[in-house]
C-alpha cells in the first residue's frame, strides 16, 4: 500500500527539471519546444497521480464497480493536452517564420547576425 | 478451461515479445533488427490479442479485440516494409559495416 508513496511526484519532479534544463540550455529552437512539452507532461503526471485511488477504477459508472478514481483532474488534463498541442503548433509556426527570416533555427547563429532588421518580410 | 487457454496464449505472446526485444539488442545491423522488431509487432501482439479474445467475457469486447487484431495484421507488416524500403533507399546495405541504426541512419 505505501510502497509507491511519493515516487510518482518525484519522477514528475525530475521530468520537470529535465524540461527546464532543455529550455535553458538548448540553442536549437525545435529542441526547446520538445523541452516545453516534457515540462508540461510532468505537470500532467502530478495531476493524474493526485486523482488516483488505490483499487479504484476508471470513472465510468457501472453497477459492478464501487471505487472510482477522481474524474476532475482527468477533465483538466484532457483539455490541457489538446491546448498544449495547439500552442506547440504556434511555437512551430514561429520557428518556421524565424527560419524564413534568418535561414537557421539555431540561436547562436541568429545572434551572430545582428544586421538583419527586426521587421520580418515574408 | 478458457482461462487456461487464454493465459497460455498471453504467456506465449509475452515470451515472443521478450525474444523480439532481446533480438533488437543482439542483432548486428538494421535489417536483422527490423526482422526481430516486426516479430514483436505481428506474432507477439497477435498472440496477446488472441489470448485477450479468449479471456474476454462479452461479445462486444471480443469484437473490439478482433478489430484491433485485424488492424495490426494489416498495418504492422506494412510499417516493417516501409521502414526496410526507406533504409534501402537511403543507402543502407547489409554488407556495409557500421550501417546500424546507432549511426543515426539519416544521411
Amino acid at each position, binding site marked *: 500500500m505505501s510502497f509507491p508513496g*511519493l515516487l510518482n511526484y518525484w519522477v514528475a519532479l525530475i521530468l520537470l527539471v529535465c524540461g527546464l534544463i532543455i529550455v535553458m540550455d538548448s540553442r536549437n529552437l525545435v529542441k526547446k519546444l520538445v523541452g516545453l512539452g516534457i515540462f508540461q507532461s510532468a505537470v500532467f503526471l502530478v495531476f493524474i497521480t493526485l486523482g488516483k485511488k488505490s483499487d479504484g477504477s476508471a470513472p465510468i459508472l457501472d453497477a459492478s464497480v464501487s471505487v472510482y478514481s477522481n474524474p476532475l483532474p482527468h477533465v483538466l488534463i484532457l483539455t490541457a493536452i489538446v491546448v498544449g498541442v495547439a500552442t506547440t503548433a504556434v511555437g512551430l509556426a514561429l520557428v518556421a517564420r524565424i527560419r524564413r527570416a534568418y535561414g537557421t533555427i539555431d540561436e547562436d547563429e541568429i545572434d551572430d547576425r545582428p544586421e538583419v532588421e527586426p521587421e520580418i518580410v515574408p | 478451461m478458457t482461462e487456461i487457454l487464454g493465459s497460455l496464449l498471453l504467456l506465449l505472446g509475452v515470451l515472443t515479445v521478450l525474444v523480439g526485444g532481446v533480438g533488437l539488442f543482439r542483432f548486428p545491423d538494421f535489417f536483422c533488427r527490423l526482422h526481430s522488431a516486426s516479430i514483436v509487432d505481428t506474432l507477439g501482439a497477435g498472440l496477446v490479442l488472441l489470448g485477450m479474445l479468449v479471456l474476454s467475457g462479452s461479445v462486444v469486447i471480443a469484437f473490439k479485440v478482433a478489430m484491433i487484431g485485424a488492424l495490426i495484421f494489416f498495418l504492422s507488416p*506494412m510499417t516493417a516494409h516501409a521502414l526496410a524500403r526507406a533504409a534501402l533507399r537511403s543507402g543502407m546495405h547489409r554488407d556495409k559495416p557500421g550501417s546500424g541504426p546507432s549511426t543515426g541512419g539519416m544521411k
Partner: protein
Amino acid sequence: MINVVADVGLLCLLLTVALAIVCTRSPLSLVLLSGIYSIALCTLFVILDAVDVAFTEAAVGAGISAILFFAVIRPEDEPVTAFSWPSSRAILLGLGVGVLLLAGTLDMPMYGDHLAPAHQHLALRFLGQSFEEIGIPNVVTSVLASYRGYDTLGEVVVIFTAGVAVLILQPDNKKGPAKPGDRDRFAPELMGNPVLKTVLLRMIPLVVLFGLYVQFHGDYGPGGGFQAGVILGAGVITYGLLSSATRLKRIISDKWVTLGMALGVLVYGLVGVAGLFLGANFLDYSVLGPTQTAGQHLGILLIELGVGLTVSCTMVSLYYCFKQGES
C-alpha cells in the same frame, strides 16, 4: 500489486527517455524520442485510471505532434555531434529548482490515498449525483461538457485562437499556389510505394469511421469531441501525406477548413445562448429538452459536435499552414 510494478517500470522508461532527450542534439531523433515518451506516458495514464486522458495523449502525442514537428525540421539541421551534455550552469540551476520542489512534495498525499483532500468535496458529488443529474455513465464527459462547460468553452476558444495565430504567421501565398509535386521531405517515396498506398488508402475510411464512433460513444466509454477531432484530423492528414497537400486541398479546400474552425466555436456558444433564451443560465442544458436528462443529453451532444468540428478543422488547418511554409 501488478499496477504498482507497471507504474514503477513505466516511470523508469519515462526517466530514461527524458534523459536521452536532454542529451540528444539531432532534431530527427528528438521527435522520435518524444513519440516514445508520449506512448509511455499514455500507458502510465491507463495504469492511473485516466483512460480519457490516455486516449487523448495517444492521439495527440504520438500522432499529430510528430506530423507537425516533421513539417518544420530539415535534414540540414542535423548537427555534427549527435550527443552532448548540458552545461553545468543549467544543471546547477535545475538542481536548485528540483530541491525546492522536493521540499514541496513532502506534504503531498501518498499514491492512491483514499483520504486525500482532492477526493473529498467535488469528486464525491460528481461520482454520486452525476448519473441522476446528467444521465450518462462517463463522469469525465459529464464534468467536461456540463458541470465545467464554461471552462471547456474557454479551451475550445484557445484552440481556435491558436489555429488563427498559425494562419496569420503563415507566409503569403500570393506568389502562386504550391507546386503540385510537394511531398513530405522525410519520406520522398511515400507516394511511389504501392504497398503503403494500397493499405493506407483503405485504412482512411476506417479511421474516419473510428473517429465518428469516438465522437458519439464518448457518453458511454472513453472518448468525446477532443479525441474524435484529433483522430478525424489525423485521418484526413494521412491522405495528404499519402498524395500531397495540394490534392487534399482540392477535396477539402482551406476556406472550408477555416470556416469549420469558427463554426465549431459558434455552435458551442449558441447552445449556451439557447439556454439563456429558454430562461436558464448560460450553458445550462437542462431546459433544452422535455426532461432534465433529455436536455442534458441534447446539450452535450451538440457541444461535443462543436468541439470535434473545431479540433479536427484546426488540425487540418495546421497541416495546411506548415505545408505552405515549406514550398
